[in-house]
């Protein structure tokens, strides 16, 4: 069975600085996979290459078994790749409903309609409302995103990504900047995501990683240090040395 997402010998350097060094990575269908590593390990660069926001220097990226190394972002999204951003990247002055509806419209191919009013496209609006309801945001549909508390903005990020009905979902620090009282809500949402979506989560919060992930890849200085199930990673002395050691003494 082909992987949901795969990289082969993926490299990226900026001049003399190598930020991705021969990364071989495999994300299985339905995976719950975490990518961890200290600051500057190249996690965000890796995600940006997966999405097509950044061109790799060499190597290959395969999505559902098909090569997409040179494909633009839009083509990858259409083939089922979705993401959330570490720093909320939303349409701040637009209502919450519109934020999700824009994504649903793109996925369903209705975004290029020039004539009928957007608000008469019931199919888009109902699907968006459904997604908001699933994430507990039904009451906020009419609010401007900028007026929402930050924890809810993080949920809107996830709602937009789900509006794309992705087969592979990249979650870039979904709980970043959220007070711990609200991060539990985000965890609940992550736990309930459809089982058939392959999820790669990039996260600093180790509690969240060990609770959510069934497989962990540790990235250090642009290379894969080790990969395995959470128990193994937690025991691995190298991981302790470069990463966990800082937090768990």
């Amino acid at each position, binding site marked *: 069975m082909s992987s949901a997402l795969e990289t082969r010998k993926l490299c990226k350097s900026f001049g003399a600085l190598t930020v991705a060094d021969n990364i071989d990575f495999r994300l299985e269908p339905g995976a719950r996979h975490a990518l961890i590593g200290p600051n500057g390990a190249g996690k965000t660069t890796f995600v940006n290459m997966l*999405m097509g*926001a950044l061109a790799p220097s060499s190597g290959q990226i395969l999505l559902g078994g098909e090569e997409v190394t040179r494909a*633009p*972002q*839009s083509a*990858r*999204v*259409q083939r089922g790749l*979705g*993401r959330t*951003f570490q720093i909320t*990247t*939303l*349409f*701040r*002055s*637009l*209502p919450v*409903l*519109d934020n999700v*509806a*824009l*994504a649903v*419209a*793109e*996925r369903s191919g*209705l*975004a*290029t*309609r*020039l*004539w*009928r*009013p*957007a*608000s*008469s*496209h019931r199919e*888009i*609006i109902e699907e*968006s409302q459904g997604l908001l309801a699933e994430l507990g945001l039904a009451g906020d*549909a*009419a609010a401007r995103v900028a007026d929402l508390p930050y924890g809810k903005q993080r949920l809107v990020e996830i709602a*937009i990504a789900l*509006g*794309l009905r992705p087969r592979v979902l990249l979650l870039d620090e979904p709980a970043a900047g959220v007070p711990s009282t609200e991060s539990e809500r985000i965890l609940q949402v992550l736990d309930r995501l459809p089982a058939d979506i392959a999820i790669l989560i990039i996260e600093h919060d180790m509690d969240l990683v060990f609770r959510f992930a069934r497989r962990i890849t540790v990235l250090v200085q642009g290379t894969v240090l080790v990969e395995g199930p959470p128990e193994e990673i937690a025991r691995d002395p190298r991981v302790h040395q470069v990463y966990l050691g800082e937090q768990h003494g």
Partner: protein
Amino acid sequence: MSGYSADPRIRWTEWLPWVAAIAFFFLFPGYLSLGARILIFILFALSLDLILGYAGIITLGHSAFFGLGAYTAGILSTKLGINDPFLQLGAAAAMAAALGVATGAVILRTRALTLLMLTLAITAILLEIANKATDLTGGADGLSGVQVSPILGLFRFDLYGKTAFFYCLVTLFLGWWVVRRIIYSPYGAMLTGIRENTARMHAIGAPVYWRLVLIYTISATMAGIAGALLTQVNQFVGLNVLGLEPSGDVLVMLILGGVGRLYGAFVGPVVYLIAQDYLAKQYPEYWYFGIGLLLIVVVLFARGGILGLTDKCLLLWKRESSAKASAR
């Protein structure tokens, strides 16, 4: 507000410009040529609002399309003897659309200052071509004696500009209707998305570049039609339709009225052109000073233009009256 949460039905206030235009026709029969000029610039500003206000494309070169449309109509009449008003409009629209798609495809890969400079360069090049190709354009003398045959074979362009005024009004109405449909459509909502957050639009799979090329072409087409109207109404076309100056004028008009709010494109040209008409008569040497002062006041004290200011006043007034109601 456009988008998925907006009510697309036409509100009663949206009929006011049309009522005002018809009232103007009866109240100021001596000013119909100024009126027609205002209507033309509203159409021009409306086309600019579509790309600047909704899609967030900044440009100082929108006169390229306006000027190309204007010269197309002029050349058709004076060189080829084609005087049918709709043929002239159609040809102007087609030429402007072709230029829009050709230049848009090149420059819309860039952003911000680079984009601004490229748009300016394109209209500057056209200005120089129009200046040098005297056989076709008349150079600095322009093309006079542009003929327009009666509209539908019935309505002759009269000395008082009555026909011209209604002709421009009907064309503007159609242009407004098209723009309004677009901005309330999913495409319009998507454009607002690009303006608000381009990175996010990429991440939800929108081919942003192609979307911008299409709206740029639509906008260029409208600007070309506006330019052709100007030639038809003036029966003349000269170099002043190209280059930085008309681009800057229409930009100032839109900023005065309010960017990205559809009716800013109506209010701006009315204020600008009436102020220009008045100031040019009173202070023929200093009228630009007055326009400059007006712009500074608006930019300093009324971000969002005259309509933005009106909105704020209405909001204050509503709060005030609701506060009074709750105090009772």
